[in-house]
């Protein structure tokens, strides 16, 4: 009976889109490198401490290599959604737009002796927005990511930073997402933040959020809805 009802139930679940997405109305933001408790700690003198971050980032950014992107994905027209409707016939697999690693500029880590700035204490942190199927982020208007120190002293300690792509923009062409099965080579857009002169040896609370018309970032309960908070600490001797 259980097997039967389970089977019946699974028949009601489609392969490509979940039946309900009500919980995902607001995509969350997340950072890379992914660390325990979202603490990005960099001991400049200790290569091992940041070495693991660098390795993770290398691996993470591999699919973004221009060569891979060129091979698999389309060059799309920026500034508009890349819609691939089924129109009655299953349009499968769906194409994805290119996001080239070079777009990340100083944070691309390509030919970078500073290892994303980690060896110099000017680390890059990558911000990505959670994938949500059929979500038209920005509602046809441009959107970007901004970062601030959480409190006043954090803002002071944070110092200046640069963002790649410029202004932390995320282009509409990367939306909508059609799901793992259809959108096989989908490449998630990234925003890289390079912190240039963080006050060393203090913990800095950083909060980045996405500014988009249809993404609320003030959910009291979900601290990661449309935003991400992390701690940055550069230890220098």
């Amino acid at each position, binding site marked *: *009976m*259980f097997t039967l*009802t*389970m089977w019946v*139930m*699974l028949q*009601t*679940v489609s392969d*490509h*889109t*979940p*039946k*309900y*997405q*009500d*919980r*995902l109305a607001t*995509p*969350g*933001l*997340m950072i890379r490198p992914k*660390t*325990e*408790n*979202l603490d990005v700690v960099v001991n400049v003198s200790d290569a091992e401490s940041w070495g693991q971050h660098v390795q993770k980032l290398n691996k993470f950014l591999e699919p973004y290599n221009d060569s891979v992107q060129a091979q698999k994905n389309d060059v799309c027209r920026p500034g508009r959604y890349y819609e691939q409707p089924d129109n009655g016939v299953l349009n499968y697999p769906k194409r994805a737009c290119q996001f080239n690693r070079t777009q990340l500029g100083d944070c691309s880590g390509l030919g970078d002796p500073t290892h994303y700035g980690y060896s110099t204490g000017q680390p890059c942190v990558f911000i*990505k927005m*959670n*994938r*949500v*199927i059929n979500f038209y982020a920005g509602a046809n208007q441009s959107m970007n990511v901004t970062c601030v120190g959480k409190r006043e002293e954090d803002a002071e300690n944070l110092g200046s930073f640069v963002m790649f792509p410029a202004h932390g923009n995320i282009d509409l062409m990367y939306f909508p*997402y059609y*799901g*793992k*099965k259809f*959108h096989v080579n*989908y490449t998630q857009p990234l925003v890289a933040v390079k912190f240039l002169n963080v006050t060393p040896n203090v913990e800095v609370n950083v909060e980045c959020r996405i500014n988009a018309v249809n993404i609320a970032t003030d*959910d009291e*309960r*979900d*601290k*990661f*809805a449309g935003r*991400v908070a992390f701690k940055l600490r550069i230890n220098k001797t």
Partner: protein
Amino acid sequence: MGQKTPQIYSVELNGAKDMKQTDKGDDKDKYRGLWSTCLELRKNHHKEHVTKEIDLGLSSTQAAELLARDGPNALSPPQETPEIIKFLKQMVGGFSILLWVGAILCWIAYGIQFSNDKSSSLDNVYLGTVLALVVILTGIFAYYQEAKSTNIMASFSKMIPQQALVIRDSEKKIIPAEQLVVGDIVEIKGGDQIPADIRLLFAQGCKVDNSSLTGESEPQPRSCEFTHDNPLETKNIGFYSTTCLEGTATGMVINTGDRTIIGHIASLASGVGNEKTPIATEIEHFVHIVAGVAISIGVLFFIIAVSMKYRVLDSIIFLIGIIVANVPEGLLATVTVTLSLTAKRMAKKNCLVKNLEAVETLGSTSIICSDKTGTLTQNRMTVAHLWFDNQIFMADTSEDHFKQTFDQSSGTWASLSKIITLCNRAEFRPGQERVPIMKRVVVGDASETALLKFSEVVLGDVMEIRKRNHKVAEIPFNSTNKFQLSIHKTDDPTDKRFLMVMKGAPEKILEKCSTIMVNGQEQPLDQSTAEAFYTAYMELGGLGERVLGFCHLYLSADEFPETYSFDVDAMNFPMSNLCFVGLLSMIDPPRSTVPDAITKCRSAGIKVIMVTGDHPITAKAIAKSVGIISANSETVEDIAKRLNIAVEQVNKQDAKAVVVTGMELKDMSEDQLDEVLTSYPEIVFARTSPQQKLIIVEGCQRQDAVVAVTGDGVNDSPALKKADIGIAMGIAGSDAAKNAADMVLLDDNFASIVTGVEEGRLIFDNLKKTIAYTLTKNIAELCPFLIYIIVGVPLPLGTITILFIDLGTDIVPSIALAYEKAESDIMNRKPRHKKKDRLVNKPLAVYSYLHIGLMQSLGAFLVYFTVYAQEGFRPSTLINLRVEWEKDFVNNLEDSYGQEWTRYQRKYLEWTGYTAFFIGIMIQQIADLIIRKTRKNSIFQQGLFRNKVIWVGIASQIIIALILSYGLGSITALNFTMLRPQYWFVAVPHAFLIWVYDEVRKLFIRLYPGSWWDKNMYY
């Protein structure tokens, strides 16, 4: 008990010794019969006052001093456990300990979390607090229930404040009896309750009713003579709480309060240990099972979790979850409610239950030791048979006989009825014209009352008849001449003769007769008619009835002219050669409902033993007429008589019934009594003393029987206490008996006991159903945890949600099962065996846990998986997702479709999962509730709609679930979310499956009784 018994006797013995001493030391008669306390009194400085004249009395100051020394003249109430202890007991009893452990573990877990990470969530604190609240609330509830049932009884013990007429400061004063002290002079008169143990100094025609103390129902004359060494026997002592029936007396208080005889008996009764009621044992057994399962599964999984490399803290939290899931938090409260509902129902049927648990005890009763008078009988003499014209006629003895159906055409009857009417001093109290005849209050003794009522029913207005037949002379009944006589003018104006009517002991009456009336004609009394008379007399006497003979004589008008003055002392009228008219016999007839009730008891496998102080013949006759001795069974003596052989020659195996007298019982050893109790199915104990009642009860209990005892006197209270269930009589019962009893029969009617038995059995069955219902979902609550630990899926059911099932949706339905009607005639079953037929037996546990419980878990998991799958997490993705799922910093967990979830989004989904699982269980609990209506019969045989309360229960389940999901869905701490309406129906197929499965189970049980299936699937 064994230790305590001698104490009361020793008191008496000491008393006797003291008296002797007193006699030696002081030969004043006044001091005869005083006991130790009084002796003491005499020795100390109050002596002069005691010896002073009666009319002086104590002075108020002395009385006050004595009062301060001895305390008030009241029985000290049985030692009560302080309320706070009672309350604390509720807090730690049953499952409470487990829940406390859970709560404390919660707080410890939070403490550890907090010390590691200041921002850790408060979930564990909430949970701990909720658990503690649950314990406290259920504790308060149980305490309240208990207090309520105690209060019912408290009203009983509250006697009307008694007053005593006392002489103090040479003045007669009325003071509350409580303030009496030793040495007080009190006056009593007919109708008063004796306010303390008193020694009579002056008595006039004083008679007391000592029945509550000694069981003797005959009024006892009292005088100021010292007649016996034993205070209970001597005539000059009046006992506290007995009643003075007639006459007046003055006496000196010799003992007050607890030092009175009644005080000793009361303390004796409270010394008899209260044994645990069967249901309490059962519930304890059940708690042990559940706690055992909870602890062993908890510890097992704690070990598994630790060895699976879970953190110890997490493992502790799992442990709490497992405990909470396993413990049916609401069940004990439900049981209490169920019992009190039944108690209420029983109260409506005149069984007032004092101790809630006694409700069930009555159901498991296997032997009832019943009183005769008042319980089995109507407790009033009633005319049962008449003999005239050489024929025995039966009179109607039922409680409300309006018509007497025997042949009333004979001329003899006309004469007989006239004698009955006229030769009678009893009268109705005035102002009762509207009261049914049988219920009217009569002034007069029992036999005369019976005759008066009988003639009133047959002839109509007796008083009018008596007026028309003016009484000119009368000799009242006395024990020396054993007859009663009166002489009347007749109501026939042409007949100037006087009519002399007489009644009395039949043989005495017959002696005075020379003729006998047959068919209205006087005939000479010859040998054959005399023989006919004796045959009838013996026959009626053999029925245990009190027989009276009636005769009359018309005095010739010549010899006794109208102006003749009769002198009853000189007896200037003929006392021989009278005309015998007939016999009439009376008995205290059985209540009409009793034979039926006894039959019911018998088919219910309950042995009814009659224990009475009455004469064996009467006892046997009543036993036969109510069916305690059934129509076709014989005693050894009966067989001997039938076969015309000596009693010794009779094969004892042939006799089914036995009448044991107190004298025989006295000489019996324990083994012999056991043999009597086991070898005879029908037993009557006659002429027994109250102490022997206790012996009989103990004998029955040695047979592993659950014994119910009825009683009314103070002296019954030890037996009432000793019995598994003591039943006191509400009308005739003394307060001591009511206090010692577990139950009070408001109408003193044996039939009410049978109703009680029925209710008790029903509640046992229904409790089984309730427990089976409750246990089932425990598995459905436990499985999520186990699956969560082993398979690593996100937690399907939260701990707080579990509490909402146990204490929310499931409460009303499990109470509703108490309203379920019996499946078959429960009165056709043997009483359950105390040790073999458990409330929670293996089939019940196995079937609830492993059959229905597992099915229910699967159904609930279906709902859970549905919710997750439709939101994006297919079952395959969920496996081993737990660790990532619960990491707070993972805010991009990928689902089956490549979407990414933040922690809070997952958490909300988890709560939705809780809600889904909860709804899944709730929907299937509806099916569970319906299948639990019966254990054997099909639901359709039982009727789906007969028990309306079940539907109230189902409605409450749904409404509570709706409120939780849609009303409180926004309160974070409760972990409920608004569930899509369609998910409410996901588990419905499983609910149907449960129903069908159980119908099949029941079908096989009905088809193959006694088979393996029946043994293992019938709970």
